[in-house]
């Protein structure tokens, strides 16, 4: 079953007197358990696509079904609920709260939706940071901070992990560790979508969606290694 299915998804906005066509007629489907990389140069529209898929933004036109539910037309409160229940976000800049410990940063989403079940310990084990749980972000390396952000993205047991340039601020060694972590999570069945302009990172996914000038150009399937 497709967890994500879009039909002719468009996002236009006005900048001064001109209309920017950030995304045009994007039609795609992502199946449960896939590891997909969205690639393209800067300004190609890949972040716009990710924001739409992550329910952070609403499309100008087209349709988007997330796990069978139509997203277009939902109000902010509906989008918040969809994000809480389905999506884990990882950002390029990590966005950890500097005053909270590793453990507290991981549990931040529970502040807004506490189901009572806490996976913090297991998740920090998974990302290899259980020994650092009482540390503050300033005491961590970039790679470690990104792994905390990944644990945070997983705390609500999302169906989809969305990562926007997750290795953009990391050196190659830490980038590799983070990608390995994504592959490990994906191997356990987590649908993973990474936005990147780095072709080497993209090559590690089992499908690549290329985007250029707001249009999806190609879907390249690759066998799971």
């Amino acid at each position, binding site marked *: 079953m497709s967890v994500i299915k879009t039909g002719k998804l468009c996002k236009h906005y006005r900048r001064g007197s001109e209309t920017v066509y950030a995304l045009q007629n994007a039609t795609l489907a992502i199946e449960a358990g896939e590891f997909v990389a969205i690639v393209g140069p800067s300004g190609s529209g890949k972040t716009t696509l990710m924001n739409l898929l992550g329910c*952070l*933004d609403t499309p100008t036109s087209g349709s988007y079904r997330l796990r069978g539910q139509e997203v277009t037309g939902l109000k902010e409160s509906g989008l*918040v609920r969809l994000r809480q229940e389905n999506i884990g*976000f990882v*950002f390029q800049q990590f*966005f950890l*709260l500097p*005053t*909270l410990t590793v453990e507290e940063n991981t549990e931040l989403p529970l502040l*807004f939706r506490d189901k009572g079940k806490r996976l913090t310990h297991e998740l920090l084990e998974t990302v290899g940071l259980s020994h650092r749980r009482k540390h503050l972000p300033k005491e961590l390396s970039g790679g470690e901070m990104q792994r905390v952000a990944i644990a945070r993205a997983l705390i609500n047991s999302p169906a989809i992990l969305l990562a926007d340039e997750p290795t953009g601020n990391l050196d190659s060694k830490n980038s590799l560790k983070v990608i390995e972590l994504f592959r490990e999570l994906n191997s356990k069945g987590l649908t993973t979508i990474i936005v990147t302009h780095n072709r080497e990172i993209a090559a590690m996914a089992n499908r690549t969606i290329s985007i250029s000038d707001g249009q999806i150009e190609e879907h390249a399937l690759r066998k799971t290694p």
Partner: protein
Amino acid sequence: MKFFSVALKNLLRRRVRSALTLLGIAVGIAMLFSFMSFNAGYQASLRQDLNRLGAHMLAIAKGCPYEATAMVMHGGVIEDYLTEEHIATIRAMPNVKTAVGMFMNQKIVHQGKPVIIQGLDEAGFALKPWWVIEGERFVDANSVILPAGKATETGLTLGSEYRISGVDQVFTVTGILQKTGSQDDQFIYMPLLTAQRLFNAEGKVTSVAIQLEDLRQVQAVVDLVQALPDVQAITMSQMLGTVQTLMESAQALITSIVVVAVLISALGVLNSILTSVFERTREIGMMKAVGAGAVDIFALVWIESILLTASGGVVGIAAAIGAGTLIEGALRGILPFAPAGNLITFNPDIAGMSLLVSVILGVVAGAYPALRASQLSPMEAIRSE
């Protein structure tokens, strides 16, 4: 982890800014608390002072009622006198229980300080049955009674000589008046005749203290006294009213200063929280992305604001209580009339009300930044520079 602890940690992240904002609130609330406490204490002390006058009303020579009240209550110079005949006439009026001549005037004592001298006779003492005098009242024309505070201040004891600049007469301290907690602690007492002679006013008095048989008849007696040529009557409630009128303008001024201080401190909170929202735009975007709704963000920012102002309120109230004596001294310096008792008294109701005001400040000042933060679009917030 709770909203409260996230908000608190966020405030601690910008320690200097938070501390300065908190200080602003503390100053505003300290002023508010002191002012409200002062109003309560002032009313109580004033009534106490009036009750301790020992008279229901006073007759004085016609003149400025403000001046008369000030003279009656904490001493002053009135050059217009009443005479012994006035006392006799008033004493003979119906419903008058006693009418006692009082003489009050001011001299410079050797230390350069003005001293208010009050002349008393036996009937005068009868008005103050609660007085406790160590030693004797007056043994001769050279006797003086000092209030305990003044005796300690000048190092004089029973039997000491007492001199007044420019006066040849040498007085002897025959009695020490124990602290009364009223304006009586501020005068020097000597026999009525001696005081009158000292100011070349033999047979004259500055006021006649009147006690009534029946307080309900006060207006009738007032009318009779006012009918005497060049005499005016002041009742206790008039004195209270006069002092309150004097106080009203001072109170209006202080009220406006307090209101301005509190408003400025609220603007400080608004500014501080709004700046912190702008600085954290991307963090707020992230929080929305990981599942925070508009209400959650609103609550987080609002709690921060209320936490800041409530702590400011607690600090302000504590500081005002700690510095109560200092504030009281400053107020005595600027007020047109200050009674002798404690002007600022600690009252839990006033502390609670001040704290409530500080919380309301946080609620009001934090509402706009909280609304701004809650309405940020997550996508735009994350992208913002």
